[in-house]
């Protein structure tokens, strides 16, 4: 019993640690006070002025564009790659997995710098270079989410479908796809999360004209964070929370069925 | 056989509000091969886990050699378990697996080495000390799991469907091996299975369970020849179970025909279940049987033919060594001694039991 209470307390402390800053940001987004440390009463004005703040909206749109484009492309390339890798012999598989681990395990700063060195040789830094950089670290997440699902699928079911006259494409769609779909989906989600949260790699590959939310905050550190930023991130967090809760609810309902 | 060694006294246990065991009372004798037999969900595994100490009963007590062990944790009980899926420690070698219990009880190095050798020899895997768990086949892993348990010299070995994951041939070999082991070790085996053939082959005593209740306790011969109710009859081997009415002592009516039997003591016109084993049905000339019918299907099974005969609206299952082509008209006969008369289940529980099969 004591043990149970102890572990509950420990759990709460860790969750407080993880979520306290988020709570602070949410509170600040409703704070009607110029200094950030004092509570000046409840207001929604930062949410209203958010729409008029062009720099923030621009950076937000840029962030969304990069995140979504990179995640969707990474999901396609990564899923295809996972199927290819799955079909390889053990040696080829090992080489591919080793290469896949490089962007995951290498230091962000080194990944960012090395890509910058490549890009400045051949092109101008800008939207497309950031996109390529994001794709590079997103694809491994998709592959690592899809591969285990592929390992769980039965090779025989696929072959049975071929035996019954299905074309490879139809057999894939009817047999393999339903099995790997959750992996593809969670890979996509991880890619979105990582892209949205990235700073270092974007920072080195973005060039002058492009700013995501992270890089914008970094450049404006000295000027201080605009309260509209808190409003925006609160909205984003709220959307993510609802989205993930709905998904969790749906998957648990499925599990019950 | 010896005295009562283990006594499960009025044990009740439920999970999530669902009753798994209801006032179960069971005594296990020393040096006995006892099998808990029943369909999945009958409570046999829960009974074993209660013995092993992995569950505590909601009500009732467990006595081991006269001592109350109801609340004793598993590591302090003088019995060992062979788990269904072996549960070998994959991060240890075979020798380390076997030595696990001995090291914990602080036995000397020499003693442990001796024991490993002895145990491996006992399960016919001499020289496997340094192999890894993953390199073994299912049957070999199972032998290691047994070796790992018996080196601790438990007074009772609990086996939870240990042969379930093996293929048929291996399963039969392991059955003989287990009987041999039991005789060599001279300890009590409590064996859980849903496979009636396993139970009949190995056990000194079988406990047939269903839905948390003990249906029948007896020797394999008793259980097979004198099943106490339709559930046991149906679960142990195949049977023709037919609704009947007891006309008077030694006369029962089934499918509109009165046939002689040997049972007495039932009420007049009492509805009963009549159980007849397929190998006890004799196919004779149409005029010589108590009932006539037509052969609907015939399958060659190696030792015998399995024949289905449609007679008086019932499909009789018959095992015979004589061939009867489909469509042939035959008579059905059963010697009175081979007709089992049973009470119809009275409570809804018992009915549920029947439906569950």
């Amino acid at each position, binding site marked *: 019993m004591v043990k149970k209470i102890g572990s509950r307390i*420990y759990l709460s402390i860790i969750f407080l640690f993880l979520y306290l800053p988020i709570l*602070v940001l949410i509170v600040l987004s409703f704070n009607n006070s110029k200094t950030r440390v004092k509570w000046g009463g409840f207001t929604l004005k930062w949410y209203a002025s958010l729409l008029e703040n062009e720099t923030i909206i621009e950076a937000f749109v840029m962030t969304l564009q990069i995140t979504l484009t990179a995640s969707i492309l990474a999901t396609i390339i990564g899923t295809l790659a996972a*199927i*290819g890798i799955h079909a390889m012999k053990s040696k080829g598989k090992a080489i591919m997995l080793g290469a896949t681990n490089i962007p995951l395990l290498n230091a962000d700063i080194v990944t960012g710098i090395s890509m910058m060195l490549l890009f400045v040789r051949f092109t101008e830094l800008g939207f497309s270079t950031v996109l390529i950089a994001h*794709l590079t670290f997103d694809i491994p997440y998709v592959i690592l989410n899809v591969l285990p699902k592929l390992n769980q699928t039965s090779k025989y079911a696929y072959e049975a479908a071929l035996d019954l006259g299905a074309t490879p494409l139809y057999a894939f769609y009817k047999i393999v796809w339903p099995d790997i779909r959750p992996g593809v989906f969670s890979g996509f989600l991880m890619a979105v999360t990582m892209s949205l949260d990235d700073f270092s790699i974007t920072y080195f590959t973005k060039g002058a004209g492009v700013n995501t*939310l992270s890089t914008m905050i970094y450049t404006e550190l000295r000027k201080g964070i605009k309260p509209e930023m808190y409003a925006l991130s609160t909205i984003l967090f709220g959307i*993510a929370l609802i989205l993930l809760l709905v998904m969790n609810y749906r998957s648990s309902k499925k599990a019950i069925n | 056989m010896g005295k009562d060694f283990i006594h499960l006294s009025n044990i009740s246990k439920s999970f999530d509000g669902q009753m798994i065991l209801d006032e179960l009372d069971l005594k296990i004798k020393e040096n006995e091969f006892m099998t808990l037999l029943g369909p999945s969900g009958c409570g046999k595994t829960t009974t074993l886990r209660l013995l092993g100490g992995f569950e505590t009963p909601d009500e009732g007590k467990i006595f081991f050699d006269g001592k109350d062990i109801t609340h004793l944790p598993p*590591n302090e009980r003088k019995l060992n378990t062979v788990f269904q899926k072996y549960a070998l420690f994959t991060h240890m070698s075979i020798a380390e697996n076997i030595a696990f219990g001995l090291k914990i*009880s602080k036995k000397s190095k020499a003693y442990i080495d001796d024991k490993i050798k002895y145990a491996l020899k006992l399960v016919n895997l001499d020289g496997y000390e340094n192999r890894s768990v993953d390199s073994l086949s299912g049957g070999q892993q199972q032998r290691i799991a047994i070796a790992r348990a018996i080196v601790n010299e438990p007074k009772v070995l609990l086996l939870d469907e240990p042969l379930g994951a093996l293929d048929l041939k291996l399963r039969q070999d392991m059955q003989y091996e287990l009987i041999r082991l039991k005789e060599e070790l001279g300890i009590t085996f409590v064996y859980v299975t849903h496979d009636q053939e396993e139970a009949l082959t190995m056990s000194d005593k079988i406990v047939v369970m269903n839905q948390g209740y003990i249906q029948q306790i007896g020797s394999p011969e008793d259980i097979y020849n004198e099943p106490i109710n339709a559930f046991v009859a149906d679960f142990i081997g195949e049977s023709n179970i037919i609704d009947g009415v007891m006309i008077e002592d030694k006369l029962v009516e089934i499918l509109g025909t009165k046939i002689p039997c040997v049972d007495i003591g039932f009420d007049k016109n009492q509805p009963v279940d009549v159980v007849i084993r397929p190998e006890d049905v004799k196919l004779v000339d149409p005029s010589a049987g108590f009932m006539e019918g037509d052969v609907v299907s015939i399958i060659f099974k190696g030792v015998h033919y399995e024949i289905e005969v449609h007679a008086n609206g019932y499909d009789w299952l018959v095992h015979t060594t004589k061939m009867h082509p489909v469509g042939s008209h035959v008579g059905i006969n059963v010697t009175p001694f081979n007709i089992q008369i049973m009470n119809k289940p009275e409570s809804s529980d018992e009915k549920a039991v029947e439906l569950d099969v």
Partner: protein
Amino acid sequence: MFKLKKQFLAGPYIVWIIGFILLPIVLILFYGLSDYHGNFTFDNLLSIFDPIHMKSLLFSLRLALICTVICLILAYPLAMILNSMHLKHQSFVVFVFVLPMWMNFMLRILAWKLLLSNNGVINNILASLGLPAIQLLNTPSAVVFGMVYDYLPFMILPIYNAMSRIGHDIIDAARDLGANQVQVFFKITMPLTISGVLSGIIMVFVPALTSFVISNLLGGGKVLLIGNVIEQEFMQTMDWNLGSGLSIVLMIFVIASMAFMNTHNKDGEGTAVW
């Protein structure tokens, strides 16, 4: 025929690996091993022995080590608690630790800055209790704190994963063979979670060693990590050769720590976090 085609599906990714993973590394080697005029030299690599660089490298190693140890100490019992809750949906655990990432990482670190600042919430609480204010911000401790905050999930998830893979019957079997709960922990749980621990260590140690943002935000320019040095070489001094040289040194440390982990990880399930 189709077997061959299936492997071709990895084609675009293989091109990607060559173009955007391997080629950049070749380039960083090229820059790091040449001077401004493109002549081969070891000077950039050797500049790590420059006292300032060496100091920041050693300091980074120290902070990364402290951060990794703290994360491990916090994460292991947490993983055990989470595992003992027998959650029906293990994805829930991932969910809880990934969700914060949807709130911008820099803002979250800045929120800590507010909490830790001299007139921040924590010092206000201390003041109301009549305790003297403590300098929390702009210290190495603050940087370590931020790192632990940011990287803790990367330690928890692999350990929790490894732990949830241990079957109940394995624990039961150990108990059955006479092991008490302490013995079960040391003989079964620990050895079987070592792969998770090792990948957790890598996932925390590498970013902690190479971070430059957290030290900028919480260190107030007073904490100079090797990541900060490299960033400055690239973005301010514009000495890309020197920056690349130091990056190679950093990469050597990353590879070395990975190699160390790999030799100690028998089942090779190390890097799969999710």
